[in-house]
């Protein structure tokens, strides 16, 4: 497991060695903040010192933003042939998968945490509930991990970054829409309630919502972590086949 470190380090710094990191960070912050400020977000209009209007867009924003980070994880290595270099170095597949995944996750966490001026703004304007803000950040980072797990898996399946991006988008939107209210209503109309509930339980929204309200429920944490773990396991399988 000690080989995770060099792989992580190379991958994480790799974002900053090209313009990717800067373009991504700026785009993410501009989009997420302007969504919150927009009339759909109502960050100021609501008159409440809360970041809920900021975080409520995250499940949707991640749909596009996380595949943008995840698509290159393996596709890039396959296309440029460096995958052959990596897997003939004394590194196991699991170490490589974890190293690269953790690097992508750390990068996403950095992007999310860089929105802290929003929290400072709230502190200046009013008296926000810091507990809720902290739990929202925790939820956002956990959700980013689950999204990234799905995207890393998609990336391991193809050497083409566009295909990887589209696959990630499709897989993530399925996981998102399962819990979208109008879709959930439709399910409840067609299936018995317990089936609809079970399906909705696989959605990012269902599990993320609690965090933005300040509730840290172990079952939500378990959901995100187990989804992450499962996709990483499939990632190893996909690379070893």
């Amino acid at each position, binding site marked *: 497991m000690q080989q995770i470190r060099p792989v992580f380090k190379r991958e994480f710094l790799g974002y900053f060695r090209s313009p990717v990191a800067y373009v991504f960070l700026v785009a993410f912050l501009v989009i997420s903040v302007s969504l919150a400020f927009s009339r759909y977000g109502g960050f100021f209009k609501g008159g409440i010192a809360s970041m809920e209007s900021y975080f409520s867009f995250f499940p949707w924003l991640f749909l596009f933003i996380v595949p943008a980070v995840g698509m290159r994880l393996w596709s890039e290595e396959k296309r440029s*042939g460096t995958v052959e270099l990596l897997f003939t170095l004394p590194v196991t597949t699991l170490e490589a998968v974890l190293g690269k995944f953790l690097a992508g996750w750390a990068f996403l966490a950095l992007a999310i945490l860089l929105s802290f001026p929003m929290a400072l703004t709230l502190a200046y304007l009013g008296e926000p509930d810091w507990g809720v803000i902290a739990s929202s950040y925790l939820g956002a980072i956990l959700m980013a991990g689950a999204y990234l797990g799905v995207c890393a898996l998609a990336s391991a399946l193809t050497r083409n970054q566009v295909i990887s991006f589209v696959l990630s988008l499709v897989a993530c939107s399925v996981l998102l829409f399962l819990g979208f209210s109008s879709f959930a209503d439709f399910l409840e109309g067609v299936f018995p309630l317990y089936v609809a509930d079970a399906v909705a339980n696989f959605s990012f929204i269902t599990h993320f919502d609690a965090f933005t309200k300040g509730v840290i429920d172990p079952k939500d944490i378990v959901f995100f972590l187990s989804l992450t773990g499962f996709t990483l396991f499939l990632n190893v399988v996909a690379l070893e086949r």
Partner: protein
Amino acid sequence: MIEVNGLVKTYGSTRAVDGVTFRVRRGEILGFLGPNGAGKSTTMKMLTGFLRPDAGTATVDGVDVALDPVTVKRKLGYLPESAPAYPEMTVEEFLSFIAEVRGYRTEPAKRAQVDRAITLTHLASVRRQTIETLSKGFKQRVGFAQAVLHDPPVLVLDEPTDGLDPNQKSEIRALIRGMAAEKAVILSTHILEEVDALCTRVIIISRGRIVADETPAALRARQPGARLDEVFRSLTAADV
């Protein structure tokens, strides 16, 4: 040092490697010859643990690649075809990464290995340049530096002189020759003069099978008076 026994690899319906068997001892430089697509690279990829063979075994120093790939990979230096490297890294960053993965974790140890590899392959002038800006010859040397960085007992080089100019070619050859005494080296090439200049033994592979395994002199003696490329053509005629 290297023992390969009945390696087989099939892609779909084509058998790329069909029962390849050979040995390489310490101090030997084995030239792997064959037309494009004959199975040279596939054999090397199985030996280095990148591909899993469908049948057969490959062992390095008595360790089976399929059973303990990480141990084998520690003993190997491998230059894959066309020398892949991370383009956004500088030469120094890239070699430092390799050194870290190879277990040189402390700064002085890492520095020493990187400096040694850079000196050995004459990369000092470009050490702070990103790899994507390098010419083909320099890229190839970066790949070579990466392969010899940890001074491995076994070197597997897939077309090490591909894309180099004549001066660089003879330089790389001199390097390989200089290191060969205490190593087992396999190199693939389709340059016949290289085999003559460098190798102590030649294997010619055609359609996934070994059609000749002997010294360059013995190969030449097959058709007295003929040039090496004529012998090569008659042995691999089935391929075309």
